[in-house]
C-alpha cells in the first residue's frame, strides 16, 4: 500500500509549514534517510527525511506553498506496491482538495490506464483490480499454491464506500488457529489482513508480514497517535478524531477494531467514558503539560525546605489606606513585589540557581507573579526589577496581569523568572507553601491577612498579621540564609516607607 507523507509538526505551536524545495522529483527512487524535502516554518528550515524506502510517486504540495500540519504533501510507493496499488490509492484521493496539485495529478492518472492494461492477474492477490471492494469473502479465492511472498496484506482492503470499512468482523475472518493466536498475542486486528490461505484464510506468515509492514512504514514525525495504515485511512475518511480512540493494536496502535469499538461506544452515547474507575479524561494544554513537567522536575531534583514568618502588617495596612486615599493605584501585591525585589537585590545569593555542581547567580532580578486565570496558572515575569520605583514596577505588573487575564501573554512575558510570588490570601488561605519553579531556587507564598489578638506590653489588643512562607532549594541556600532573607522581606513590610523611595532607596 503506498504511503502518504504528511506535513510534519516541528513544534507545539506550529500550525502550518511551507515547502521550500523538493530534493527528489516524481518517479525518483528514495532510500529511508534520504532528504526528501525542505520545509520551513518561521525561521527554521528542516531537511525532512524519508522514513520509508520506495519511489516518490507523486508530489501533492509544490515548492513555495504553505499547508497545515498533517496535510499530505506527497505519496510514496513502497517496493512491494504494484501499479494497481498505486493507481487505486491515487484514485481514492482523486477528489482530495490539494493545493494546486492539478497539473501533477495528470501523470499518474495516465500511468493508471497503462497499469491496468499491462498488469496481468497477479497470483496471491485478492481479486480483480478496480473499484470493487476487495472484502475477502466476496472476492474470488486465490489459488492455494500462490507464492506467499507476493501478497501485500494491507492492500487487500480497498473500500470505496463507507459500509465495507468495517466488514468483515475480525471474529469472522477465516484464519488458521495458530495465526489467530499470534494475532491475539500481538494485538493484530485480523480484518486488516489479507489472507493467502485457502478461501482467503489468514496464515501465520500473513500476520508476520503484516507486523513487518507496520514497522517498515513507521513514521518518525507524523502525529503522536500510533495507528495502523488501514485504520488511519478509515479514520481519515470517516472523520474520526483518533486522539479520542484508545489503541489496542501492536505497539498500542489504533486498529480498525478500535475504531469500531469507539464508534459503537459513541452510538451508545458513552462518549469518551472508560469503563469502571475512570471518568472522562481532560485533555491538557501544552502550557499545563509544561507546568506538570516542571513541577515534577522541581520536586525530583530540588531538595525543598520551608520556613515561614508571621508579619505585622498594620503599618502596611495604614500605608495602603493612605495611598488609596491619595488616589494612588498601589496595592498590596505591588508593595510585596517591591519588597521582594529589594530583598533579592540585597541577597544575591538567593537570586541564584544550581547548575553543573555550581551555584550561579542570576544577572537580573526577575520576579514572577503567579496568577490564576480561569483555572489556569500563569506566572508573568516582571523583569529587571533592580533599582526601579514602585510606581514603575506596579505599572508593569498591572500590564502583565491584565494581559494574563486576557490570555494575551507572549512567551517572553513568562520566561526567565528568577523568583516567584504566589498569593492565595484572597482565597482565604491562612498558611501554605508553593513548589519552586526551576531554575529558580525560592518561591514566596503569601497568605490571607488575619485579625489576631496580639500582646503589646501587658495589654492584649487586635492586630493584623499575614503569614509569609518561603520554599527553598537546599542546594542553593541553607536555613540561616533563608531566614535572613525572609527576615529582610519582613523588615521591609513592617516599616514600608522605604518601599516608596525611588530606586534602591537607602
Amino acid at each position: 500500500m503506498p504511503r502518504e507523507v504528511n506535513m510534519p509538526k516541528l513544534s507545539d505551536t506550529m500550525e502550518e509549514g511551507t515547502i521550500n524545495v523538493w530534493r527528489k522529483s516524481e518517479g525518483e527512487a528514495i532510500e529511508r534517510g534520504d532528504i526528501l524535502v525542505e520545509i520551513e516554518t518561521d525561521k527554521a528550515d528542516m531537511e525532512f527525511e524519508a522514513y520509508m524506502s520506495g519511489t516518490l510517486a507523486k508530489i501533492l504540495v509544490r515548492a513555495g506553498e504553505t499547508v497545515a500540519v498533517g496535510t499530505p504533501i506527497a505519496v510514496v510507493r513502497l517496493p512491494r506496491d504494484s501499479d494497481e496499488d498505486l493507481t487505486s490509492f491515487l484514485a481514492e484521493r482523486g477528489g482530495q482538495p490539494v493545493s494546486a496539485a492539478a497539473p501533477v495529478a495528470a501523470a499518474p492518472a495516465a500511468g493508471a490506464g497503462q497499469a491496468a492494461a499491462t498488469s496481468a492477474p497477479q497470483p496471491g492477490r485478492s481479486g480483480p483490480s478496480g473499484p470493487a471492494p476487495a472484502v475477502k469473502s466476496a472476492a474470488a479465492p486465490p489459488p492455494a499454491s500462490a507464492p506467499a511472498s507476493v501478497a501485500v496484506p494491507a492492500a487487500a482492503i480497498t473500500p470505496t464506500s463507507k459500509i465495507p470499512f468495517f466488514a468483515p468482523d475480525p471474529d469472522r475472518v477465516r484464519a488458521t488457529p495458530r495465526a489467530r493466536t499470534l494475532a491475539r498475542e500481538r494485538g493484530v486486528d485480523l480484518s486488516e489482513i489479507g489472507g493467502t490461505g485457502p478461501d482467503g484464510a489468514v496464515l501465520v506468515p500473513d500476520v508476520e508480514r503484516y507486523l513487518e509492514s507496520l514497522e517498515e512504514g513507521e513514521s518518525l514525525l507524523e502525529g503522536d497517535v500510533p495507528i495502523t495504515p488501514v485504520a488511519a485511512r478509515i479514520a481519515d475518511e470517516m472523520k474520526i478524531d483518533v486522539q479520542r480512540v484508545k489503541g489496542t493494536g501492536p505497539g498500542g496502535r489504533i486498529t480498525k477494531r478500535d475504531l469500531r469499538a469507539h464508534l459503537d461506544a459513541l452510538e451508545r452515547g458513552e462518549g469518551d467514558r472508560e469503563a469502571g474507575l475512570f471518568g472522562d479524561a481532560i485533555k491538557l494544554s501544552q502550557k499545563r503539560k509544561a507546568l506538570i513537567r516542571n513541577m515534577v522536575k522541581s520536586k525530583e531534583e530540588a531538595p525543598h525546605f520551608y520556613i515561614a514568618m508571621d508579619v505585622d502588617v498594620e503599618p502596611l495596612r495604614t500605608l495602603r489606606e493612605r495611598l488609596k486615599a491619595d488616589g494612588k493605584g498601589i496595592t498590596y501585591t505591588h508593595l510585596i513585589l517591591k519588597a521582594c525585589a529589594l530583598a533579592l537585590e540585597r541577597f544575591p545569593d538567593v537570586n541564584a540557581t544550581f547548575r553543573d555542581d555550581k551555584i550561579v547567580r542570576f544577572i537580573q532580578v526577575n520576579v514572577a507573579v503567579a496568577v490564576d486565570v480561569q483555572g489556569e496558572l500563569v506566572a508573568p515575569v516582571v523583569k529587571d526589577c533592580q533599582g526601579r520605583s514602585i510606581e514603575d514596577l506596579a505599572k508593569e505588573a498591572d500590564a502583565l496581569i491584565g494581559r494574563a487575564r486576557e490570555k494575551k501573554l507572549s512567551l517572553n512575558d513568562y520566561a526567565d523568572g528568577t523568583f516567584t510570588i504566589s498569593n492565595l490570601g484572597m482565597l482565604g488561605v491562612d498558611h501554605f507553601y508553593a513548589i519552586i519553579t526551576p531554575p529558580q531556587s525560592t518561591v514566596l507564598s503569601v497568605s490571607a491577612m488575619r485579625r489576631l489578638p496580639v500582646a503589646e506590653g501587658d495589654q492584649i489588643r487586635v492586630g493584623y498579621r499575614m503569614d509569609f512562607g518561603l520554599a527553598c532549594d537546599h542546594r542553593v541556600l541553607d536555613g540561616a540564609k533563608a531566614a535572613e532573607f525572609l527576615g529582610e522581606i519582613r523588615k521591609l513590610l513592617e516599616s514600608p516607607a522605604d518601599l516608596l523611595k525611588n530606586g534602591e532607596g537607602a
Partner: protein
Amino acid sequence: MPDLAVEWLGRVPYAEALELQKKRVEARRTGVCGDVLLLLEHPPVITLGRSARPENLLTPVATLRERGVEVHEVARGGDVTWHGPGQLVGYLVLDLEARGERDVHAHLRRIEAILIHALAGLGVPTGRRVGMTGVFVEPSEPPRKIASIGVGLRGWVTCHGFALNVAHDPRGFVDIVPCGLHGVVMTSVREERGNADEASALLRKARDRVAESARRQLASASAIG
C-alpha cells in the same frame, strides 16, 4: 541532560564553516559526539536563506564579488543576511530528540534567551519582538536589531544558529534589506555601548558571555512556558 561543548574557531571562510558544521551534524546524528556550540567569525559574506527574496539584495552579485564579498545560498530558514568581521556567529548543533524537546520554535526562543542573557551581562538591555525572530535592543523604536537567528534541522539535530553584531563594520548591511525586514535598523554591542570599546577586546568579551550563557541555558530545562 547532555552537556554542551563550546568551541571557538576564530575567523573561518563561510564555505569551510558550512562543511565543518555538516560534519558535526553527521557526527551528532550518529552519536559520535555530543551537543556543541561552534563560535566563529566569517570574512565578509552575504547569505540567502531558503525564503530569500531577490529584491532584498540591493547590490548586484558581481559588484559584491569585486569588493571581496562572497554570496552564498544556504539551507536555513529566513531571508538574506550579512556576516563579517566583528560579528559573533554561533552554530548550535543540538540533538533536540535526545533532549526530549522536539520543538523547533522553542529552540528559536532558547537561542534568543541565550543572547538576551549574554547581552544583559554586557550592559545592553534587549528583548524579543512578537512575530520577529531575533534579538532587539529594548526599548527601541524603530526596532534596533542586534542579533539575527535562523536554524536548520536534519532529523531532530539542529544546525545554523545566530549572528550577534558585536563590533562589525556597519557598512556590511548596506547592500541588503536584513532578513527582509524594512524599517528595522541593525545595531551592535559596540554602538549601544557608545562606540568606546576596542573591537577585538569586545568580541572576546561577548564570546565568553555567550558561551557562558549558552552553557547555562542548555544545562537545565527552561522555566514554565
